[in-house]
């Protein structure tokens, strides 16, 4: 299978890979803690895109079942991702609370300054 063919048939999965890459880059490279939290969320939504794409069936309808309807896309990944989105927000809330607390204690959000303060 040529690269172009793969890109045309697996486009969403390549977007997943790129989103995961951007998320990892932000987690590693951003020195600002709030941007790290944003990076974590981008990584998460990359995984969500993987699940929802896996659930998709060409020509399928949303899984609201009626007599004689169909085909439908798979409802199970949708449920898992609904749960994951809410858990992700809870995670973000705790992370941001910690960020605000760190700022109150140390007066900075810069990772490198924080490391310096920690070593002193």
């Amino acid at each position, binding site marked *: 299978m040529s690269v172009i063919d793969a890109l045309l048939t697996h486009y969403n999965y390549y977007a997943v890979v790129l989103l995961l890459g951007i998320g990892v880059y932000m987690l590693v490279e951003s020195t600002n803690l709030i941007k790290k939290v944003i990076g974590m969320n*981008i990584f998460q939504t990359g995984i969500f895109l993987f699940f929802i794409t896996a659930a998709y069936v060409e020509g399928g309808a949303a899984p609201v079942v009626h007599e004689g309807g169909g085909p439908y896309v798979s409802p199970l990944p949708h449920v898992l991702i609904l749960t994951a989105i809410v858990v992700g927000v809870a995670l973000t809330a705790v992370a941001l609370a910690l960020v605000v607390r760190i700022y109150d204690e140390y007066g900075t959000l810069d990772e490198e300054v924080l490391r310096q303060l920690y070593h002193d």
Partner: protein
Amino acid sequence: MTPSVLEVVLLVFVLTSALGAALLKDTLAAVMAFAAYSLGISIIWVLLQAPDVGLTEAAVGAGVMTILLLIALANTVRPSEDQLFERVRPRTVLAVGAFVLVMGATVPALPAVGATDSPVGSGEVTDYYLDNAYEETEVHNAVTAVLAAYRGFDTLGEAVVVFVAGVATLTVLRTEAFA
């Protein structure tokens, strides 16, 4: 199946706003780019026939998440705007590039987008839910049926997580609003 023009436009929009969130130096600009990203991805959910996920993402991802980030920004500091973009370090780009290449190499092994014979789309569990959800729960929306009935304990666990997160947030911030 090949992507429609709308899908390509949305994917490019989503990837661009994610890159914007990564590279913009100003935190407020990064938060705005992330809000645009969430909105774009919620439209992708609708195109992929997942309206429930799309609604949740638009309300919670683009709405609540942006508000949380803005509250955090209001209580902390915005870095001084001496430059528009972050400094890009080649070492990290190389490491992340290798990660992306390795992940990308596995993609062709997956079933094509929308394949009718994919393990998820034609799986036993999927067929069971679609065939029996209405008779067993009298709910037309299979997603609701699975969320509230078949996987009800899962959803209870989710509620526990949200509760614990609320308690943790208040504890960390030493808020005495409920004391």
